[in-house]
Every structure is written in C-alpha cells, then in structure tokens.
C-alpha cells in the first residue's frame, strides 16, 4: 500500500484533517477528497494556469503541488472567493464584462487575479497582462478578462475610499 500522510490545513477558512497517499496532488485532494470541484485541471504541466489556488496567499499550480505540502497552511480556492455579502468584486466584474465563455479557465484566472490585487491594488493594464501570462484562455481572446480585472481593481479601490 502507498504511504499515507496526515494533512491538517485550512481550506477556504475551514479546518480540514485527512490522510492521503503521499503522491496525491493538491488538485486531486481538493476535488476528490474535499469535493471542491471548482478547481480544474488541464495541461497538468504548470503552464495553463487552470488549476491555480492560493497557498498562504501565494498562487500555486495544484496539478503538480503535492497535497501533503499544504499541511499547516491556508488554502483558498475559487469556492472561497465569495463572501457572506455576495460575489467577490473580481467575480462580479468577470460576469459584467463577459470575461468567460466555457468557464473552464475562469477559476484559475480569478485566483491569479486575486493574488495580483492582494499585492498590487491598483495595477496598470501592462501589469495585469504580465501577471496573467501564465493563464491560458481559448475562448475569449483575453481582452474582457483584462478589462474585468482592471474594473474590479477600480471598484475595490473605490470601496476602500
């Protein structure tokens, strides 16, 4: 039998404790063990950005990041973005700007965009584009995604006063 590892972590604000085989990747752990299927997998090579989640605030590719490595850490997935008062401003902006079509890449874009705005609250278009270079979208042509991130940043800046 493969070696089972203990994992104790906070996922979207909820404490979880599980065991999983050592080779389990974080995406499989989130999707299969925790039922958080919002995180998707595509390239499985860390280049498409679909599977991005935040670990202690830093974006990681959950397709290759080992589940055991979240032990003692905080994970945020797309399911953790909306608050009690509704959608996160990024989520609302993606809806408003038609920044999604098939939606498969959307969770990864939202997570990467959150990582940017957490660090740079008022980015330029160039900074948004550069930050999202590692995320692939095959549907939209990117323009509405970049517009949505800039709009969300503006809304969040305004809300902070």
């Amino acid at each position, binding site marked *: 039998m493969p070696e089972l590892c203990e994992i104790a972590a906070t996922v979207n604000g909820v404490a979880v404790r599980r065991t999983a085989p050592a080779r389990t990747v974080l995406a499989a752990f989130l*999707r299969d063990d925790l039922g958080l299927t919002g995180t998707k997998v595509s390239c499985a090579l860390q280049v498409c950005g679909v599977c991005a989640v935040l670990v202690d605030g830093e974006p990681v590719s959950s397709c290759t990041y080992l589940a055991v490595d979240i032990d003692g850490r905080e994970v945020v997935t797309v399911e953790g973005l909306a608050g009690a008062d509704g*959608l996160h401003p990024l989520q609302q902006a993606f809806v408003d700007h038609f920044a999604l079509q098939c*939606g498969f890449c959307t969770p990864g874009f939202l997570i990467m965009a959150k990582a940017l705005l957490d660090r740079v609250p008022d980015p330029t278009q160039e900074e948004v584009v550069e930050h999202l270079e590692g995320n692939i979208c095959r549907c939209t042509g990117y323009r509405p995604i970049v517009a949505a991130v800039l709009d969300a940043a503006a809304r969040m800046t305004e809300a902070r006063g």
Partner: protein
Amino acid sequence: MTPKVAGHSVPRADGVAKVTGQATYTVDVTLPGMLHGVAVRAERAHARISGIDTSAALALPGVAAVVTAADLEGLFPRFGHIVADHPILAIDRVRYWGEPVALVLAGSVDEANDAAAAVEVDYEDLPTVMDVEAALSDVAPLLHEVSYEGGDASFRTLSGGAPVPGRDSNVAHEASVAWGDVELALAEAEIVVDTTMRYPMLYAYAMEPYNAVADFRGDSLEVVSTAQHPFMVREDLARVFGLPLSRVRVRVPFVGGGYGSKSYTKVEPLAAVGSWAAGRPVKLVLTVEESIYTTRVDAAVVHVRSGFAADGRILARDVTITMDSGAYADNSPMVLGKAVNRCFGPYRIPNLRVHGRSVYTNTVPASSYRGFGAPQGALAGEANIDQAAERLGIDPGELRRRNLLARGEELLPGKRPLDADIAADLDLLVTSLEEGAPQDRRWYGIGFGVSASDAGAFPVSTAAVKVLPDGSVLVLNGSVEMGQGSRTVLAQIAAEELGVALDQVAVEQSDTGTVPYERTTGASRTTALAGLAIARACGDLRRRARGMAAEVLGCEPDDLADAPGGVVGPDGGTLSFGGIVARWFGSAAGEITGIGLVRRGDDTAVMPPFWEIGCSGVAVRVDPETGYVVVDQLVTVGDVGFAINPAGVEGQDLGAATQGLGAALYEELVYDGPHPINPNVVDYRVPHAGDMPRRIDTILAQRHDGIGPFGAKGAGEGSLNPIGSAVAAAIARATGRWPTELPLTPERVWRLLQEPDPGT
C-alpha cells in the same frame, strides 16, 4: 415591435455558476461504485499487434479489469458517423502512435495509471506513411484495405461528394465542384496567378480534455460526456451495443470548450465498453496529451490558380486541396466537402474547378475544427486575391469589391442566394484598419480578407417550451452550452416571444433522455436553427394557450389576442399564462407545452440555412532582426443579421479571431518520425494574454437578413476564417516577401527576410 430582451447584452445565464466554481462539467461527475479507466496507447505508428500481456497489470492493487479488442465479442467494435472505420480498441493492428490498445480499469486514477504501464504489448512493425506525399506514392502501404459499412448517409448529399471507389489507395474521400470552362478562361486571362499555401496540423486545445462517465446496466446505457453532438453520439453507442436509441441516454453538462473538436463520437465508446466489461460505472478522463492523440485538425496544402482580366475581374479559378486526415475518417470527409465549397470565396467566378482529396496517414485522426474547411481553403484562396492585386496594381480592397457577389446572387448553383452585404462589411473593415494605423509604417503591414461559409449544417432542430403554473417558462432543446452562450441567447428568444421577464425563463439542454432532438451543436447553427425551433415552440404554446383561455372564458380563440405574458380578451382584460394553466386544469397544477420543429422546409428548404460571413483583418509590425511579429490591430465585422446578445457575439468574434491568430503565428503540431514531438501545451504554443493586439475593433453589421429569430444568422466561426491569409498578407506587405505556410513563427519570418528582396 422593438425587442425588449433580444438585442441586449444581458449577463450570461451561466456567469455566476462559472465564477463561483459551482458549474458542473463532465470531469466533475462521479457515480457510486465508479471505476477509473486509463487507456494503454500504441507506441508504434503502424504495426501488427502480436500479443498483449495483461497479467502483470491485473496483479496490481485496485485493478478490476483490462479490456482489449478480444473482449468485445458480441459488440459492434467500431464507430464513426460517416465511415465506421474507427475501432474502439485497436483490432489486431495499430494505425497511429497513441491509438488505444487496451483499457485498464481500477479503483483510482493512480492505480489505473500504474497498471497501464504494466500492460505489455508486442508489435510487428509495418511500413508507415507519415505524410500525404508518402501516402499517395505508388508503393504506399494501405492503411485500410477494406471499405467499411457507412454511417450517416447525409454526408453523401455534400456537394460533389462521391463514394470512395474501393480501397486501392489511401485517399479517404474526394470532393469536387466545377462549372464553366476553366482551361479556356485561363488561356484568355490577362494574368494568371498561382498560389500554394500550407495550412498547419493543429490541435484545438479545448481546455477540458475529452472525458466521459459511462454506466452500462444490461439493457440500457447512460453516458455523461463532453460531446458537442449528444444525439449523434447516441447513434454510435446504440450500434455498438445493439440497443434501441431509447435505451441509450447521453447527457452533456457544461463543456469546457469545443471549437468543433468535440463534434461527433470520441471517448464515449471506450468508457462504455469499459462499463459493459466490468459491470460497474467507468470514468475515463484523458490528459491533454491523450486528447491530442484523439483528434486534431486537418492539415492541408491548397493550390489556387486564378485568371484575371486587366480590370481585375476574376475569369476563372482552379483549386486543388490535399488534406492530411490521419488514420481514421472521423469527420474529415465533411471538412473536405466544406473546404471545397469555401476555398474560392464569395466572388463572381464564371469558370470554376475545385478538386479535393482527404488522405489517410499514420497520424492522429483529424476532424472538425472551428471554421470547418474554410480556414484551410480561404488561406490560399484569399492570399491568391492579394497576390493578384499586387500584380494588377489594384488596391486589394478594390479588387475584392470588383468581384464580390451582391446580395441575392448565387455563390453555388441551386444553393441559397447570398443573404449578406459583404461589400459593405468590407468597407467597415478597411476603414477601421486604416483609422487605427500609426504614422510610422516601417515594417508595418495591413492584411484582410473575406469568406462565406455554407453554415448551419443540416437543419433538423426541435424544441419544447413550457409554461408552468406560476407563469414561469422552461425551454427544452438538445443543443450544448460549450461557452458560446446558447443558454443565454435561447432564453432571450423565449422571453421575447412570450413577453415574460428573462429571470422567469430557464433553459434545459443536451440530455437525449429528456430534451427534444437537436442534430448538432456546430456550424454556428444554434442561435438561428435551435432559436427558430424555440420561436416556433413559443408560437405553438401561444396557440394552445389561446385555445385553453377561450374554453375558460367561454369565447372563441379568435376573440383573443396575444399579450405580453398571456392573452387579452375581447373586453380588454388580460389573462396570464399562469392564470390559463390554473383555470384550465382547475388548480395550480399542470402546464402548457408548445412544440417547435425545423426541417428542410419553409424558411430552411434551401440549403444552406444561412451564409456565415467572415470579414476580418489585422495589422502587424515585424521586427526585421528577429522575425518576431506583433499584431498591432485586429478588426472583425460580424455580419450576423441581428445580434440577440451583442456582447456575446463580439466575444465569439474576438475568440474566433484569436484562435485564427494562433494558427497564423504560433500553433503547429509537428511530426518528426512516428509521433508528434510537441503533444503538450508547453511545446504547442497557443495565444497568451501578452499576444493581445494593441487595438481591437469588433464591429457588428446587423441587417436582419437571416432566417433565425428577428433576422439572426449564426456567428462564431466566420471571424476566424480570413485571419490566416490576412496575417500572411500583412507580413508580405511589411516585408516585401510572400510566405507560403503557417504558422509564421519568428524563425519562419526571419528566414523569409533572408531571401533576396524581390523588389531589387
């Protein structure tokens, strides 16, 4: 009547679900007791299978079964809607690297992967044909010695599509169209322009890989999958198991991108025979590499020879198309037929001859891709027009204007007359590109083109629309939401027709067990044809509602008129749909159902149902030292009749054009030996955010000239079709040298720049 809901960019019906992670895709579906499948794939391009040893795999933990072709006794072991030539699991022989040879079923994906690596397959190598030149040589080994029982007969109605005369060559399919006397006209032409362009082998890269969950229960089969055409997949599956169509249910949740690549049957039979063999549900999720080994895009070499009069009139066009279609037919015969119709452009051509061949090679089978033969054909067809413009000294826009068909003229004999004003579209396009161009035009080039596609596919669409006791509306239709926004647009159509608020309308799609038949979700058909079926269903519902209202009000149906959300009586009083349901059934129960049917008849008697226009252009700047190309401008003109959701249409146009830029500049699946050398997204380079053009203008031309609701036509493919030639022409104008192939990577452009300057 001014539409209240149609014509407005209402938010996507699936928007909130898709930003919160709540949207369900096939890859999210699980069933109790489910096994996970992993395919063992051929590691030869062409070989006889001399033995498969599964014993080591079966001994590994968690493994339930290993299925090979030998286990499929009693089943029909192949699929294919045009030619049933595609074995579910390789039968005695593999015809391309990556073909499924066995299916391992285990309790977890990791266990199944471990076991798949332990399956030993022995091969005896056969000679290979890795490209069309090899496949067409006199001494080429045949990939298929026999003809297979045909699938769907409707492809035979393709223009010029002749049945294949026996299996004595690797030509999988031929198609042609011709009129006039091409030789005579070319002999009399002022100039004759020859153009040969190579369109690359592509992979559509829908981000959700092919996957399916199958549950075989003895006398019935249920499959959840990523299929664009669940009703056609149902036919393939019913044939495999000898089941009536009614006992095969194919359900499709949200699809993570299709672009044609999920048309027709892919992994569903493999998952289904796994469940049949193991007696448990089976989930089969391919990796991206395996998806590349499932379906790619037809590569093509297209030669165009055109004769022109001195004033620029086209006198004749002579086109040959050779497509590399891979090891199995899939939908390539249809793609070829469409390429033949779409290569010569929406021009007045008195003499025409087009001949196309689709060729079997020992490569991944090719099939539908967004644009469907038009990107391949229009690349050479439109580049040829631009080259003629250079030689004649006529502006390329003006040369097109002199030859473009006008509204009402015939593009193909006996087909629907042109339902668009392409000259007006072209003016919008060229004006925008010129306005957007910078002062400094060194190493800068503008390119553009037009196309017309016989779109909409075979018009068989059905829909049901129900009014529920509370007056809310349920729309049922078999089309698939794969990102194009059909769930939103179809709701807008029903809300408009019935005069109810959009938030009272829900749309159920893509489940062969519950919703009415839709032949396909492809060829840009859903808005126009499924939309037409829904509009008709709303009309039928209103007719029934008037009849039921007349009964409860004690008047004649003719005394009642339609009103928003219900009927208005002779006294001017209104009765809502919900009120009619309650009073006719006698309680707050029951519903009214309207049915809408579309077939080849009435508005859709003449094929195609509509012409999908492509009208796109780019401006590029070339770095002369590196060959690197920056797309400075992208302009699309969506000639869509009526945009029911304008933001949605612009999103389709930009997305399609961006995929076109991918093929033009970056994307190519490269074979070097028996297998592709870049079957992954690291080495297969698609457009990224940083590749976005500086200036993007998505123009909509709405002239209400379609057969769809409110005059709508289809969208979603057209803007891609001219992009390849537009980029090639722009680079030619920036560098003074014409490229002959895509993608125009920095290396290719740099090499082009090393050629002697033709102007000196």
